[in-house]
């Protein structure tokens, strides 16, 4: 091997080491949200008796402002109590592109403002581009307060 080729390789190797030493930790720190363990995050919606049986009631997740990272705002959801024993908490995101659904009490339908998706009270898709039914959060009752696990749905929901 020629002296110059050798020296060139040495410079390239040295640069690669420096690039790795700076780039790898930066890359790992940057990518870290990807492998954070998924853990249940229970947040209260309000006392259960606020949500009438047989009705769909809009609600919002109560946020503790001291936590970090600070949530972007109250997460709006819909609580449906078809009967005494059953509680269903829908995500407000349309299953097509994530636009915010509105509940229309007259027809008992959820309406999407973006491309006219319509869902029935039981979450079925009735019309428009969406293909899958409304997403449901895992929920539980703690001391008479309805709570949902916001980690129970995919990250963009």
């Amino acid at each position: 091997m020629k002296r110059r080729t050798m020296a060139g390789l040495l410079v390239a190797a040295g640069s690669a080491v420096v690039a790795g030493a700076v780039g790898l930790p930066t890359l790992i720190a940057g990518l870290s949200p990807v492998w954070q363990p998924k853990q249940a995050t229970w947040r209260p919606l309000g006392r259960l008796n606020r949500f009438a049986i047989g009705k769909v009631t809009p609600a919002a997740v109560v946020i503790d402002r001291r936590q970090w990272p600070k949530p972007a705002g109250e997460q709006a959801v819909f609580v449906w109590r078809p009967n005494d024993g059953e509680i269903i908490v829908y995500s407000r995101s349309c299953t097509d592109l994530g636009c915010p659904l509105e509940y229309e009490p007259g027809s008992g339908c959820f309406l999407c403002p973006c491309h006219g998706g319509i869902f029935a009270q039981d979450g079925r898709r009735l019309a428009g581009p969406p293909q899958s039914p409304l997403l449901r959060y895992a929920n539980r009752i703690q001391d008479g307060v309805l709570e949902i696990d916001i980690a129970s749905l995919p990250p963009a929901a």
Partner: protein
Amino acid sequence: MIRRSLRWIVDRFGLGPIWDHVLDRNVPKDPWYHGDGMALLVLLTVLVVTGMLLSMGYCPAVDEAYRSVEYITKRQTLGWFVRGLHYWSGGLMVVMLFLHLCRQLLNGGYKSPREGTWLIGVLLLFIVLATSLLGYVLRWDQRGLYGLKVLLTAVQSTPGLGEKSVLLLQGGPEVTSLTLSRVFALHVVLLPMLLLMLVGYHLYLVILHGTTTLAERKEPIETVEEQREIYHEQAEHPVKGEVFFPTAVIKISPWSIVSLALAFGLTIVFGPRALLAPAANHSAEPVSEEWWFAWYSALVALLPPSIAPTFQWLFPMAVFIGLVLLPFVDRSPLRGWKNRPIATTLVVLLVLSVLGLSWLRYQSPWTAQAAAAVPATPAGFELAHEAEQGRQLFRQYGCTICHSVAGSGGAKIGSDLAQLDTIYSQTELRQYILRPPAGVAMPGYEGRISDDELEQIVAYVLVAQTFPRKQE
């Protein structure tokens, strides 16, 4: 003395070679409308300058971002003007970039030896589109939040990598302060830096390889050597060639002047984009995308639902891969739109689709919304008391969301009741309203309306079926 100082500056700052190789170089004569690339450079400069000012007033924190934009717009001296110029230049840049792309597709601007220029250009196209979307997310109003959500939902639909990518972009399992910090970093630091570096490289290649000249479009060019020979012969020709600065620059400046005039004019007439309500997931304000994405919104609304989830991730990926492969797939020696009827037809169709889809978006927003008014009764019809009650209930129970009556109201999701294929009897209507047949996109009303209300609605629909098909 002055002359000596100038010579010193030129020598010590190495301006000579720039003059020789960039400004004083000879180029083949180009028609005036080849200045779309220069217009993009001008718009980019406007965006960088106005963006610098905006970044000094903007606060990338979830509780403060909206108010800081409001401050820039309403209270900072000329803040509205700078934000307006940034907004309109951004939108115009997307339009000009589309024109730039179309022109290269028409003329075969990606053919040898300009494949490198083209590939860098494809990267620039996607960076500009991403930057233009993330820019309006920064406003942190309803449009911004839902622009982001739509983007993330589309990313999430990618098989395998979707959820991981959302976690990365969002900075965690939900939209938090980290998300806004990321959007800020991407829009203000990372993407513009990448953009400026790649634009520099793109321009270096434009100077090195030139752009598709009129002479190159005349006859088939088989090899790179042949192309270079034609190019240089043209460039150095006393009639067919000209000097780049200032002759060519002045000639190709119309696009730049029009772009700047539009950016200034639109800013002065309309001001910056009005802020919607602050980003909040409980606001009822209807949202829509920015106008330069209207065509895409129409496209996803019109797709059959079965392919929509695949389309959302496959479409951008297919466009990217398609554009990257284009110079290697299209090996024909012909350049210029006149020699390439297929390319020309496709580009005309592309332009018509983008314009047509955008037009459709504004004609029909497809928004499913509770109609505010009861359907009108055609002239010459008198409703009995019961049917009139039914007409009121028709709105109250949300029937008007889907059904129009003789063309009045309704989003045309369900049938127009005056245009039904079959006329239903009283008994059939009762059945239909309480328990719609399977597969029909109508909620059942059993248990939700009283017998009296049902009779009133049925009475109304019975009359509505006899209305003339369209009201004048």
